[in-house]
């Protein structure tokens, strides 16, 4: 398929890096000129060194050296479990209430009431129910990711052009087969939006879940570093979450485009 702006594709992509580059430049200037004290904003090269030590584990970084793989594995597991759970429940329920007025009546009120509760207010309850650790974090992530996934799937399923469903029915494609052959593809743009929002918010709630005293994870690192006054480690944690979050988003998008024609071909 032909692409709009083909010649400028690289320039287009590079544009996304412009803002981070500017921020880095600003940071560098602030650190070099001593405008901001190092205990508030450490020099980029110190942060880089901390990051290297965090990942590769040499140098005398005491508690933080070489923790990265362990933290990363713990965090990504929690995010994937929570997000997976949210998809498993949110997608079918969303599509169901988009198509069946009865399901919408049944679920809509409750879900929209729960949606109004800020995610952080679930934290104490989750701690009582599940204790500190994996379960609490997965619960918070799943809960937070559920709403955008459910709501977008619902909107997508509701807005499907009824003529497409009629066309399918007259060609003998109905019910379950029609759901997979027509309903899902037609709702795909909304579904993708929901999944991407859900995955994004998963990372936010991961950190929330990990701030409560678990011993590993990217959120835990940030919390430990705060206790020890290690602002460089905090910044490393933040940057890693930003990068990994973005990579997950890109990965999800690519995976969907790989798996579904409709994800490739619909705007």
């Amino acid at each position, binding site marked *: 398929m032909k692409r709009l702006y083909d010649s400028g594709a690289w320039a287009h992509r590079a544009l996304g890096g412009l803002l981070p580059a500017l921020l880095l430049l600003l940071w560098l200037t602030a650190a070099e000129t001593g405008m901001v004290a190092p205990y508030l904003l450490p020099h980029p090269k110190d942060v880089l060194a901390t990051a290297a030590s965090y990942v590769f584990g040499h140098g005398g970084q005491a508690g933080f050296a070489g923790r990265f793989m362990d933290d990363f594995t713990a965090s990504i597991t929690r995010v994937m479990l929570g997000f997976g759970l949210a998809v498993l429940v949110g997608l079918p329920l969303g599509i169901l209430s988009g198509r069946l007025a009865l399901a919408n009546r049944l679920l809509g009120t409750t879900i929209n009431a729960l949606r109004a509760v800020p995610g952080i207010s679930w934290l104490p309850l989750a701690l009582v129910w599940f204790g500190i650790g994996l379960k609490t974090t997965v619960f918070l992530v799943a809960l937070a990711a559920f709403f955008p996934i459910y709501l977008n799937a619902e909107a997508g399923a509701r807005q499907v052009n009824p003529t497409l469903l009629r066309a*399918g029915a007259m060609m003998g494609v109905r019910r379950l087969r029609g759901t997979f052959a027509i309903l899902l593809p037609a709702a795909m743009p909304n579904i993708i939006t929901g999944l991407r929002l859900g995955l994004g918010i998963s990372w936010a709630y991961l950190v929330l879940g990990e701030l409560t005293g678990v011993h590993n994870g990217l959120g835990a690192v940030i919390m430990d570093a705060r206790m020890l006054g290690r602002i460089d480690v905090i910044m490393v944690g933040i940057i890693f979450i930003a990068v990994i979050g973005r990579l997950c988003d890109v990965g999800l998008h690519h995976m969907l485009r790989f798996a579904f024609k409709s994800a490739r071909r619909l705007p």
Partner: protein
Amino acid sequence: MKPKLKIVSSQKGAPAARAILEVEGLSKGFATNTNGAGRILVLNDVGLTVRKGEMICIVGRSGCGKSTLLNILAGFLSPDRGCVRLGGRPVDRPAPDRCVVFQEDALFPWLTVRENIAFGLKVRAMSRQEKEREVDRFLALVGLTEFGSYLPAEISGGMKQRVALARVLILQPEVLLMDEPFAALDAQTREEMQDLLLHLWAKLAHSIVFVTHDVGEAVLLADRVLLFEKAPGRVKEEIAIDLPRPREKDTERYYALCRAITSQMKRA
């Protein structure tokens, strides 16, 4: 020369063996507002018969219930009263034996032209090669062989309607239902599509119910024209078009029939 309008007598006495689609006493109303307080009668006691291999055109003013009738024939809507029989059996749901070419674009936008045409074959017990061969055949029949890999968004309106035609013809429906399929096309493309339809009809011998508000189109295509009356909709007149085929548009007889039907329509 004054053309005589041949009014066909009611089909009650027609031999049942030749009738493929029979409609009797069809009535349909809609609630006029959401709480269902008011009700308008859109179809009132509609009856018609389509014989095997015949093309009938339903002509009527906008809003007289043509689409509603077609939706009932297709099984998308159920009538309040009356019944529809296909080959003697009552119909109550959509099925590939009655396929619709819709007024608006109803292709699946995430499927290529090929995949759209192959869509209805999903549920058929045929080998892959057989399906591919059928799709090739129908792509060629509608003149889109080179466009198989295009997406609907990448082809013109006329080409979309060709795909819409191919994807239902491939299912070999008993009756083809067409709801103003060419109304959104420019004059030249519309003529091309009319020629294509006549060509395919001669070749595949389907029975066709063709809805239009264009009298010229009806006279060009139909064996019989059913003139629909407005509010509530019902068949006001049946006019047999006995022009020999292939038909020429700029003949005196053609214009005379158009004029006669148009004046009938004004009185409807």
